[in-house]
């Protein structure tokens, strides 16, 4: 028993050490295409996908590459990030990796495990002009391109028409400004005799944080545009947090927290918005596809619209922050040419259209977005137009992204769920992360 307990600690050490132990070549890894002499080409390529609700569908998609080229593609999905890290530090990484989001790509690039794609893009004829500029932001660092977006997400405002009607609002007119949204939210919020919330108009961090969208609406972000400076304590950041905070302070922080804790699972009919407990929510394009609202609450009478701008800045209408899946080639790949060819095939408009239609995600290719199948999904065009809007932007990422996002998450929690003032928290974080980013970029 004692030994067993000790062994858990030892295991943590082992995992860390093994990651490094894999680094020098030699060791295991039985069969990969890379082992073949380049002249004869690879027998098999490997693709690892971090998400993957439907591995069979993904394998089916890549089987088309086999039909076309005769090269087998083995798809592994979903794969946790720890396994991806271990593989990246090893001598036989998979040929292509698809991550759920671009937030870690620059930290990985700093670790020298990501292949710079500029050459492959030039030689394989991937048309960068076909890719929407907003989702590209997370992959670019100056001129360097570390990844390409492979289907992305953008968020909009969903509203429950029935609840609008009950509250005496026009069910077909969503709020046009952020101020109006606050007004509507008040009208849509109900309490019972004991003062418990039974319906809430809007909860800014439901189902997760959307500070990136709000801060863009206030005209800034937590990095400057080229990701070389931290701007955590900038006015838009303070405004974005304060704007969110009011939804908690007004109805009572404890009340709202109790209310949100009682909401059902994200993928269930009891999800707050589906269940008619939350009247307006910010959520992504997948909601309008077959696997969410129409699966769990087909009768829900709802509308979707781009999130409104502040009244003082109507020109910020159609602002959206694009995030989502990115694909990259590990630096340690043996047969870069073969990996590059597979990568280029993945980025072709037809394949993007097929994959994104299957998962109701936004196609990152302009040509793919014209695919008639997307028009069949009701309201999907709202999201495609949002991504194509000149106000659409990507989440700016840096090599210190994970740590900064983690801290920002904590600040949000303190401001929204504990009623703390945002300014001193942001200032403290600014003084911590500004030198950290400078240091990280110096090393690159």
């Amino acid at each position, binding site marked *: 028993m004692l030994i067993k307990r000790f062994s858990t600690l030892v295991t943590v050490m082992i995992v860390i050490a093994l990651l490094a132990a894999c680094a020098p070549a030699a060791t295991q890894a039985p069969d990969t295409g890379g082992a073949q002499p380049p002249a004869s080409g690879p027998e098999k390529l490997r693709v690892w996908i971090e998400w993957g609700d439907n591995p069979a569908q993904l394998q089916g998609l890549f089987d088309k590459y086999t039909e076309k080229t005769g090269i087998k593609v083995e798809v592994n999905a979903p794969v946790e990030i720890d396994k991806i*890290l271990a593989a990246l530090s090893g001598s036989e990484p998979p040929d292509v990796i698809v991550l759920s989001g671009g937030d870690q790509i620059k930290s990985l690039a700093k*670790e020298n495990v990501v292949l710079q794609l500029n050459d492959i893009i030039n030689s394989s004829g991937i048309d960068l002009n076909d890719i929407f500029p907003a989702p590209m932001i997370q992959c670019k660092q100056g001129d360097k391109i570390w990844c390409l977006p492979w289907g992305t997400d953008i968020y909009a405002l969903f509203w429950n028409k029935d609840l609008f009607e009950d509250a005496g609002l026009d069910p077909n007119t969503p709020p046009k400004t952020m101020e109006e949204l606050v007004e509507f939210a008040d009208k849509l919020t109900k309490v019972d005799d004991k003062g418990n919330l039974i319906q809430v108009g809007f909860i800014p961090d439901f189902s997760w944080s959307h500070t990136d969208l709000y801060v863009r609406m206030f005209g800034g972000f937590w990095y400057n545009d080229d990701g070389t400076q931290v701007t955590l304590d900038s006015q838009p950041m303070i405004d974005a947090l304060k704007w969110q905070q009011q939804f908690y302070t007004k109805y009572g922080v404890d009340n709202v927290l109790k209310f949100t804790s009682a909401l059902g699972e994200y993928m269930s009919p009891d999800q707050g918005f589906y269940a008619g407990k939350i009247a307006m929510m910010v959520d992504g394009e997948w909601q309008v596809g077959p696997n969410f609202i129409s699966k769990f609450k087909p009768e829900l009478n709802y509308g979707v619209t781009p999130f409104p701008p502040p009244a003082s800045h109507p020109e910020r209408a159609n602002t959206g922050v694009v995030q989502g899946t990115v694909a990259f080639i590990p630096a340690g790949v043996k047969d870069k040419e073969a990996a590059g060819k597979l990568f280029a095939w993945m980025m072709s408009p037809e394949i993007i259209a097929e994959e994104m239609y299957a998962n109701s995600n936004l196609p990152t290719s302009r040509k793919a977005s014209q695919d008639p199948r997307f028009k069949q999904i009701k309201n999907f065009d709202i999201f495609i137009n949002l991504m194509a809007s000149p106000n659409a932007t990507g989440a700016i990422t840096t090599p210190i992204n994970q740590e900064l996002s983690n801290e920002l998450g904590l600040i949000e929690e303190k401001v929204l769920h504990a009623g703390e003032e945002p300014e001193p928290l942001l200032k403290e974080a600014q003084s911590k992360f500004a030198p950290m980013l400078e240091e990280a970029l110096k090393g690159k």
Partner: protein
Amino acid sequence: MQKMDSVVSQSHGKPVRWSKKTRHNFWLGMAFLAPWSIGFLLFTMYPMGASLIYSFSEYHLRAPLKWIGLTNYINLFQDKLFYTALGNTAYMVVIGVPLTLLLSFFCAILLNLKVPGQSIYRVIYYLPSIVPTIASTMLWLWILNPSSGLMNTLLGLFGIQGPNWLKDPLWAKPSLILLALWGMGGTIIIYLSGLQDVPLSLIEAAQLDGASWWQRLIHITIPMVSPITLFNLITGVIGMFQYFAQAYVFGNTAGSIGSPLNSTLFYSVYLYQTGFLFLKMGYASAMAWILFFIILGCTILLFRVSNRYTYYSG
């Protein structure tokens, strides 16, 4: 190793020529030991040694190690989150472990009573500890749901308005302790076996002398099971210092790792986050070594202190 010791001791320290058979036996013994020894060297000693070196280095996934001396350790001692994590973990060790021991001992006494259906009760109390960790954590997240959960519904029957177990930083750790208490079947079983080893003769003698139930408990039962208490205490403390899975699931459900407000950011959780999410493997290795020494220190301390309070009848 044992084999070699016995060979040496037979020779009273003087070198002797081994017979062919002894030599054969020696190598045969070594061969039998080899799978474990090689595994131990390769998968325990080497990684531990390597992580010690990494803890003095800046570690990159695909670049040579950069020796930075004590920098990781110095940074660690200036890291606020390190103390938050250490504090959270200490809370679990100081409050969670004694509470578990006390309640397990109490349950073991009850389960030791000769009542009809005794074995059924024993099974019921042991069952939760065979439920997989993640499953039981998910289950408890439902039970502790502040509005629709079983716990607050039950408290509501008595007119008590239950707290927000999941999202209130004051209640997050007590929630996790509740979860730990639910799964204390293993500790109960060990106590139960200890209770059955308490000599009946002592209890009968005390009874004849007119000792009450309470006096027998304090002066006979508790001293007699003290080695079991020590064992449970040490394994409990070690386990709690490495507390991870439940906290990881709990935090992620409440928002993100460490939620609410870093109240569930335990040492191992922060170690994982540092190594695998922030990609600071050297720093994480330094954390692992500090944890190792903290656990070692606590264990030694407990052994030392326990000498005065532990009674070994054998």
